[in-house]
């Protein structure tokens, strides 16, 4: 396996088995990219991991994880305005945060070129929805390329960067989860000789760069013109691929793009069906001449895509406009608009139009469903300790609001803490709305520290100004834990440390308590005091991410044997608080009713010791660490 350092710094061409995200990072280096920015979010953070894989002094590019996606996009845009090729990348919903500036980009003369990389998530594998960002391409007049494999991710990034720079316009590269994380052998090219300099080339004469009433129309005209020009290039692009039917000239055709197109190719091959597959590289603007030719040369065409009816609507309109007789089929069921395409699903959808050629695969034999295993907070997680304390301190009827982060998992049993969730940083303001006119039910909002900096600060200022009667529990673990411990603003890992208590005080927060999350009695007392306070109150529940802490401890000392806790069987009164309420994964309940500690999972943090009513959880002698 190739190291990330070698991937990013090796000067000559080579080949390697690698995932889409890593292939994309190498492509950035091959393209001579100068600036990359991001906010971590699945499925894209490994692009950042690869960019950070080269030692800082050997990087010909600048890379940062920014405070949020809008900041990331603006920073990449600024670099491009200076003449530097730039890219920003984030997950699907990150584009909502960046949208306010994104929507202006096509009116800007981006002299360095700029690629906006999206990690969309059909199937909602790690997102709060499966929003279809292809709509944004239409709305923002930004062309969109859609790779289906790591190889294509590399190739299409290089093409997107080159055309973007030449036409001085932004280009979208839309990947989906299983393109980002797919693994295959990729042929890489050499790194360019001599990195481009940092000469700041911004010149207002390249603009105008200020869209106001009088300048909007010429700028929009230019954006539309560039979009058309991009479309003409895509009409003749070799990146569009035709997979002809094995049986020879076919009257049936399938139009698709990205991973769904490869699902179609597999379904056609498995069925031995007489159908050609046209795989589009660019889904906005559509290559209309190529599509019209394909429609004209087939009697029936099926438009196969994930999520919304985006390609379908455009292709049906094209067939109508051109007066083509080709019958255009599309997905029939509402369930077809949800989830991610697979070859068997493609076969089932195609069978709805062409039952003589395709068969829906038989359902799996009915079987007893095995016990579910949902993700959990890790052993030693400060959030668990905080949830356990908060849950006991809440009065009946209290409403708890979740935010995004590992702590979102608190909504599940047994904690059931944080039972409504919209988006990053929403919890303070949604909580403030729930508190309006409400004097009978306490409102407690949770928030993580990376999300605090990402999008929660305006909501906190609003809560201070309006003195909203809610309690904010700020779960501070010092990192962006859920996406893999990227540094977050203010930790001191990047730039100066920003201490949260001082920042909150400066923002005008009058009631503030700062408690170690393992000290459950102290945390419960602070929470009760905060809820009694009339108006906005903040309780910081602080504990470092223990997954990160233990990884770093083991990296420093590979032989580290963590200490453990044990259940004193003589004392255990079988309350089951540890397994059923505190619910650390380290506790094992045996059929005979006894409880023991799983030696492979316990890290000896001891946050559970205080939770046992019978005081039966004891620290084992020996071991190292905490």
């Amino acid at each position, binding site marked *: *396996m190739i190291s990330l350092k070698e991937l990013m710094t090796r000067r000559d061409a080579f080949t390697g*088995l690698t*995932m889409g995200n890593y292939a994309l990072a190498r492509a950035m280096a091959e393209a001579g990219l100068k600036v990359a920015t991001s906010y971590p979010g*699945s*499925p894209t*953070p*490994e692009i950042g991991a690869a960019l950070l894989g080269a030692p800082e002094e050997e990087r010909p590019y600048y890379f940062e994880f920014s405070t949020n996606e809008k900041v990331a996009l603006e920073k990449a845009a600024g670099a491009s305005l200076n003449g530097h090729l730039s890219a920003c990348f984030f997950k699907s919903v990150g584009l909502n945060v960046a949208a306010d500036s994104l929507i202006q980009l096509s009116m800007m003369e981006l002299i360095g070129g700029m690629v906006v990389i999206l990690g969309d998530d059909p199937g909602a*594998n*790690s997102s709060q929805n499966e929003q279809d960002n292809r709509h944004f391409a239409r709305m923002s007049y930004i062309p969109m390329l859609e790779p289906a*494999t790591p190889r294509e991710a590399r190739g299409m990034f290089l093409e997107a960067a080159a055309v973007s720079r030449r036409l001085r316009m932004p280009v979208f590269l839309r990947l989906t989860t*299983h393109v980002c*994380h*797919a*693994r*295959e*052998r990729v042929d890489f090219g050499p790194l360019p000789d001599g990195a481009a300099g940092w000469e700041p080339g911004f010149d207002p004469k390249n603009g105008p760069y200020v869209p106001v009433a009088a300048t909007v129309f010429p700028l929009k005209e230019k954006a539309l013109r560039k979009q058309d020009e991009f479309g003409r290039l895509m009409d003749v692009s070799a990146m569009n691929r035709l997979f002809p039917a094995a049986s020879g000239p076919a009257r049936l055709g399938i139009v698709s793009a990205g*991973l769904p197109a*490869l*699902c179609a*190719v*597999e379904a056609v*091959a498995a069925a031995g069906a007489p159908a050609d597959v046209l795989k589009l590289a660019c889904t906005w603007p559509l290559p209309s001449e190529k599509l019209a030719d394909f429609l004209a040369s087939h009697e029936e065409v099926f438009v196969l895509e994930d999520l919304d009816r985006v390609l379908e609507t455009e292709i049906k309109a094209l067939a109508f406009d051109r007066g083509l007789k080709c019958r255009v089929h599309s997905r029939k069921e509402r369930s077809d608009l949800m989830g991610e395409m*697979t*070859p*068997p699903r493609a076969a089932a959808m195609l069978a709805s139009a062409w039952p003589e050629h395709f068969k829906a*695969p038989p359902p*799996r*034999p009915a*079987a*007893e*469903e*095995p*016990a*579910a*295993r*949902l*993700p*959990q*907070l*890790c052993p030693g997680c400060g959030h668990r300790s905080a949830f356990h304390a908060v849950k006991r301190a809440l009065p009946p009827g209290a409403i708890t609001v979740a935010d995004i982060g*590992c702590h979102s*998992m608190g909504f*599940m*049993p*047994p904690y059931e803490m944080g039972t409504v969730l919209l988006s990053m940083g929403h919890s303070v303001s949604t909580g403030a709305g729930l508190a309006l006119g409400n004097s009978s039910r306490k409102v407690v909002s949770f928030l993580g520290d990376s999300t605090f900096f990402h999008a929660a600060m305006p909501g906190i200022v609003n809560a201070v100004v309006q003195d909203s009667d809610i309690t904010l529990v700020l779960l501070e673990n010092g990192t962006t834990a*859920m*996406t*893999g411990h990227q540094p977050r603003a203010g930790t001191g890992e990047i730039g100066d440390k920003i201490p949260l208590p001082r920042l909150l005080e400066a923002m005008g927060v009058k009631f503030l308590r700062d408690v170690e999350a393992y000290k459950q009695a102290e945390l419960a007392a602070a929470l009760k005091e905060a809820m009694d306070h009339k108006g906005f109150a903040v309780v910081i529940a602080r504990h470092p991410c223990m997954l990160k802490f233990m990884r770093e401890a083991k990296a420093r000392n*590979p032989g580290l044997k963590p200490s453990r806790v044990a259940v004193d069987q003589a004392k255990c009164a079988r309350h089951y608080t540890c*397994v*059923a309420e505190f*619910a650390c*994964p380290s*506790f*094992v*309940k045996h059929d005979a009713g006894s409880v023991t500690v*799983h030696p*492979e*999972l316990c890290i000896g943090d001891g946050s559970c010791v205080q939770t046992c009513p019978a005081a039966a959880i004891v620290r084992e002698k020996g071991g190292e660490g905490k």
Partner: protein
Amino acid sequence: MAFNVYICGVGGQGIGVLAAALSTAAEAAGHEVRGCDTHGLAQRHGSVSSHLRLGGDALTPRVPEGQADIVLALERLEGLRGALYALKPGGTLLYYDTVYQPVTVRTGLRAYPSAEKVEAQVAELGGKTARVSVEGISDPRMQNAALLGRLAALGLAPGFTRETLRSALADTLGGRALEANLAVFDKAAG
């Protein structure tokens, strides 16, 4: 037809090592390799899976439902779950026999399956079951090496021989606790 391997376990067990070693071994055996890992939230003690497809006609990276020739699992319940989702008739489930209770089991809502129950449910699918465990493993991540060793011994997949898997494991670990892992590999291979 592609040869499909569905790998599964509990987030944190390190199935990435298993997937990486198998990919390397498959390439060494001359197969074209495509695959896909789980990243993100599910890694936190949830069910995780990794996919490996061998052969040029596999264009997509995930093993389609019911099309796995082998299901390789690092834990018993996940082995059952993986087999029910992915195993094809005639395929084999090979799992490392360790138990990580999910919350639903610890809170008494659901039962944890016995080894006999797993074997019976897999037999109903028309599949075979093999399990491995090695006494005295010092680090649970070495269970990966045990699974690879037994896979080599069973000769379940084209090209997954003792030699290719052993050297792929060495390549993947890059020196980290290599001797101990190879000892576990050899012990499991028998």
